[in-house]
């Protein structure tokens, strides 16, 4: 089912929005201009995952070496700190076994008629759409 979330301009880069869609809580994220949606429930103990910090991560490296990356692509669970890749829903510690459900997101031009005093104006604006 199609759900209009908001205008693109209202969800800037780095921001996210938590909505209830079809009875389930969903987090919609703008990561560097691309939009992603995750189920707002951590597969571990059910914490509201999308309330967590959006951040980067220390990438795999040699002992004593620090490589930081994926800035803005990681959401860290607000309870136990487990990291999830917002782009895929997969956990960092075990992407194959521990993952959160993702939903399709599109950006679509939506025509809207807005009444301005007595004139009708057609506006075309881009909206973020989540498909469940």
């Amino acid at each position, binding site marked *: 089912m199609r759900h209009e979330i908001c205008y693109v301009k209202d969800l800037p880069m780095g921001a996210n929005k938590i909505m209830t869609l079809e009875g389930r809580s969903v987090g919609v994220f703008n990561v560097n201009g691309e939009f992603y949606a995750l189920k707002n429930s951590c597969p*571990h*103990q*059910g*914490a*509201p995952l999308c*309330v*967590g*910090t959006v951040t980067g991560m220390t990438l795999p490296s040699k002992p004593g070496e620090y490589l930081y990356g994926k800035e803005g692509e990681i959401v*860290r669970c*607000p*309870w*136990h*700190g487990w990291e999830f890749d917002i782009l895929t829903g997969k956990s960092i510690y075990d992407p194959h076994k521990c993952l959160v459900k993702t939903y399709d997101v599109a950006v679509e031009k939506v025509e809207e008629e807005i009444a301005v005093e007595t004139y009708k104006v057609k506006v075309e604006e881009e909206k973020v759409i989540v498909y469940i």
Partner: protein
Amino acid sequence: MASLSRGPIIDCDVHPTPRSMDEIRSYMKQPWKDRYSGGGRGFYGNPLHGARLDAKPPNGGPIGSDPEFVRQQLIEEYGHKHAILLPRAFCNLHPDPDFASAIAAAFNDWLADTWLGKHNPDGVFKGSITIAHQDPQAAAKEIERWAGHPHFVQVMTDSGARAPFGQRQYYPIYEACEKYGLPLAIHPGTDGMGINIQPTPGYPTHYIEWHTCLSLGFQSHLVSFLTEGVFEKFPNFKVVLTEGGVAWLPALMWRLDAEYKALRYEVPWVKRKPSEYLKDHVRITSQPLERPDNDEHLLQVLEMMDAENILMFASDYPHWDFDSPKLAFPKLPDALRNRIFYENAKQFYNL
């Protein structure tokens, strides 16, 4: 979710926080009032976050400082009958025992007035008497000051110490605990900080090491209690190991019972196999519960350690490693679940 959140709950580790350090200072006399500035355990702050990010009170104040929000997010959310409160005074690291005792006393006055007083009309909150074990005589007096209070149900100390807790310098504390029917809860904190010894070979580098190894101090304290004969000398004294881990217990007791067969000679006051003292004298709280990949393995450990009689549920709310009453455990048989989540604590604390 069937059977995962059924039945009543007593939560044996919940952390209330003062709204500000001024609130604690208001219970202090000089010179401590001017001198006290709060302060935590020192090193080993969690590199991610130390408390649940969704636990910030909507009306402001530090996490864990709003009793009404704790009621909403914990007590009502999960149907808690009682929450055992353990404030974190971190007084056990101070070299000056008088300063440490003053901090402990102020935290007790604060807790009694607020969470155990005006915010506790239904008695859902039960509290812990903070003591400074640097000065066991003063600690015993502090216990005496609160004896008979309807909502203080135990005495508490950090696991951080200068010596294992079975040693005789601590006995005034245990004598007071026994006299007033108050168990002693040991909670992680101040190990290796201030005057206290770090129970690992040197200081671990990372939080992950430090946090994983918190159970080492607990193991050392437990073996000390058992071998020094504390439970023979104080036959009604009881200990709660809070937040020290769970699954290590069977292996440690096997080891100690094995040693006992010959080395009983060295500690002749230990009259029974050491593990046999646990049911009468020791309780262990569940959080942070270990979760092996195979749930069956954990269930076997629970059976090995006599969880039915000695394990008590704890969430550690609002800290980052909160164990949800709904999902921290695998599915348990109903009778065992009720023992762990409710009956064991109800009996132990006479609730």
